[in-house]
């Protein structure tokens, strides 16, 4: 595999895309052919099944690039495959079913274990190790987070909490009100696109757009915000210098980018509120504000929660906005940024970095747990 990627890297760039896609699709094609022929009856297919069960794990190990001195790894792969074959041949649902299932699920599951589960465990362990990753230091890294001043761990933790409290409220709130205001208005489509378009712009792009908007300089202003301040009779402000103002202006970038998301989803929810409900409230003489608060909001409450949770998770993990606007200076660091910064110090503070990542992880848990709970509920 290394040899393949290395060969690929030396191809002309535009050739790399089709070549890597073709190679990938050939592998997937082989998997689908094996899936198709695995459960076929007959003695010959029993041998085919054995070949698949033992051959595929061995081939995968070989593809990973093992050349020398690891015979027992291959042996283990072959034994596991043989075990699968044996289980499959005794399966009540018919021969080949289990092999078929394994072919369907194992590529993704293997990647999830190697790429998500295992690194997560590694990071959890590093959070309790020193920066070399070899010496156990107990809770020292977390003590560092909670005690360090300046632009270190504690600031980033507190800032992240502010981000999570502020950004979702405004993005969801503005999105909701806007969705209601443009609902059935004549220019609904255009007005929606204007708010929605920032969704497709990267945080990097958005941050530069707003850096220009917030620009401060001596003499003639080129940033619109300061020009507005001057027009209102004020003196220009160096927006990104003073804490906590700079943090809220950075949160505004996230709100700017996420409001469109909230608006589109809430707009769809508002449109699905039964007209009879609104009419009934109208007959009862409810004003439009009351209808909104007493009828529409309770009906679409589950959607509001989903939107709010999604934006909260985005705010918890934010990295790009800080990297582009202030690079964490002037007390603006957040967990997602500080984690990367600690790792890129020299020498890398892997312990600190892992502890910060753990804190993001812990803060995300309640949100995803809520989502998973409603998923389980809707399944049963």
């Amino acid at each position, binding site marked *: 595999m290394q040899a393949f990627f290395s060969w*690929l890297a030396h191809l002309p760039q535009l050739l790399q895309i089709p070549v890597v896609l073709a190679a990938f699709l050939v592998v997937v094609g082989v998997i689908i052919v094996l899936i198709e022929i695995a459960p076929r009856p007959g003695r010959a297919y029993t041998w085919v099944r054995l070949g698949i069960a033992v051959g595929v794990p061995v081939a995968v*190990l070989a593809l990973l690039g093992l050349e020398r001195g690891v015979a027992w790894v291959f042996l283990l792969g072959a034994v596991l495959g043989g075990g699968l074959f044996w289980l499959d041949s005794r399966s009540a649902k018919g021969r080949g079913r289990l092999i078929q299932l394994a072919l369907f699920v194992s590529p993704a599951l293997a*990647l999830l274990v190697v*790429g998500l589960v295992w690194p997560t465990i590694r990071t959890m362990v590093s959070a309790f190790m020193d920066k070399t990753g070899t010496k156990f230091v107990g809770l020292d890294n977390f003590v560092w987070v909670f005690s360090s001043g300046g632009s270190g761990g504690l600031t980033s933790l507190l800032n992240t909490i502010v981000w999570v409290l502020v950004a979702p409220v405004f993005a969801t709130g503005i999105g909701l009100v806007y969705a209601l205001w443009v609902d059935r208005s*004549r220019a609904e489509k255009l007005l929606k696109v*204007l708010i929605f378009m920032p969704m497709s712009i990267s945080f990097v792009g958005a941050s530069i757009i707003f850096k220009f908007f917030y620009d401060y300089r001596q003499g003639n202003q*080129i940033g619109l915000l300061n020009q507005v301040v001057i027009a209102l009779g004020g003196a220009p402000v160096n927006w990104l210098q003073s804490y906590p103002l700079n943090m809220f202006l950075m949160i505004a970038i996230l709100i700017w980018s996420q409001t469109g998301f909230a608006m589109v989803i809430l707009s769809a929810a508002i449109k699905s509120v039964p007209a009879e409900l609104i009419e009934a409230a109208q007959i009862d003489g409810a004003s439009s504000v009351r209808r909104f608060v007493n009828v529409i909001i309770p009906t679409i409450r589950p959607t509001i929660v989903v*939107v709010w949770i999604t934006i909260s998770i985005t705010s918890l993990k934010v990295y790009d906005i800080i990297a*582009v606007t202030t690079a964490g200076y002037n007390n603006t660091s957040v967990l997602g940024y500080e984690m990367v910064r600690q790792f890129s110090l020299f020498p890398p503070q892997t312990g600190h970095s892992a502890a910060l990542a753990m804190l993001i992880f812990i803060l995300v848990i309640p949100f995803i747990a809520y989502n998973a709970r409603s998923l389980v509920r809707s399944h049963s």
Partner: protein
Amino acid sequence: MTVTAISASTRMVKKTHRTLSSPWATIGAIIIAAVWTLPTFGLFVSSFRPATSITTTGWWTFFSDPQVTLSNYSQTLDFVSSGITITQTLWNSLTITIPAAVFPIVLALLVAYALAWIDFRGRHVVFVAIFALQIVPLQMLLVPLLKMYTGGVTAFGAQIFPGFAANSLGSGFAQVWITHTMSALPLATFMLHNALATIPGEVMEAAQIDGAGHGQIFLRLALPLAMPTIASYAIFQFLWVWNDLLIATIFTSGSNAPITKILADLSGKYGQQWYLLTAGTFLAIIVPLIVFFALQRFFVRGLLAGATKG
């Protein structure tokens, strides 16, 4: 009697419409829309102004003194940062994005099909477990993955994976592709499972009675029927990867950097070179904007499918 009732109800519906879209509401919406659009518009106008004008006068003076030039764009495309031109970074973005959008979708389709249509013990547990893996923030993965790619994997003293070559030329874009694929799998599996699971059971049974195996059903039946959702998710993933900065920062180096990474660099190093940043930003967002406007309907559908989970 009936006629009056009908006309009364039509009046009522009209009234509902009217009160929900009062002129004040529309004016409020227009104000928000203007606030939302002005920052982007300002940068856009600036990108066409001469370099010296951008940093000496506000972009709004453009309307009293219009000077239009394309030289910002031509200079930016040829600008060399970290040894590569901006043009090259745009190609890099494309080379990273297309495979990194295709890989997770295909792999997620395979596992989602099995979770939806093959009955096995524990499939609900597997499904919820994959969904719950969204819990893992990218930040938890970066350092261990980097170590895995460079140092390989060793278990019980034996090497299971020797790692990629250290320099970027040695492994090309492999690290970015693989990282994007792995981190996208939970959401992709969830969304595509929803699409596959809604195929009517009779259709699947009919195909099975006709003697088609799961491989054929997957290719000839499930894939075409799930195509709208696949397209929606593909757009989503494409934009996600194109706009990503974090994975690019950690897993690309030197000549492999995508436009987002170089733009973030420029913003730090050349924070006052606005001719570069204005044009560079628009070069970076032009592809997502084209995708967005051309495929808006799919994009919205993808968002709705992803967000109405549970």
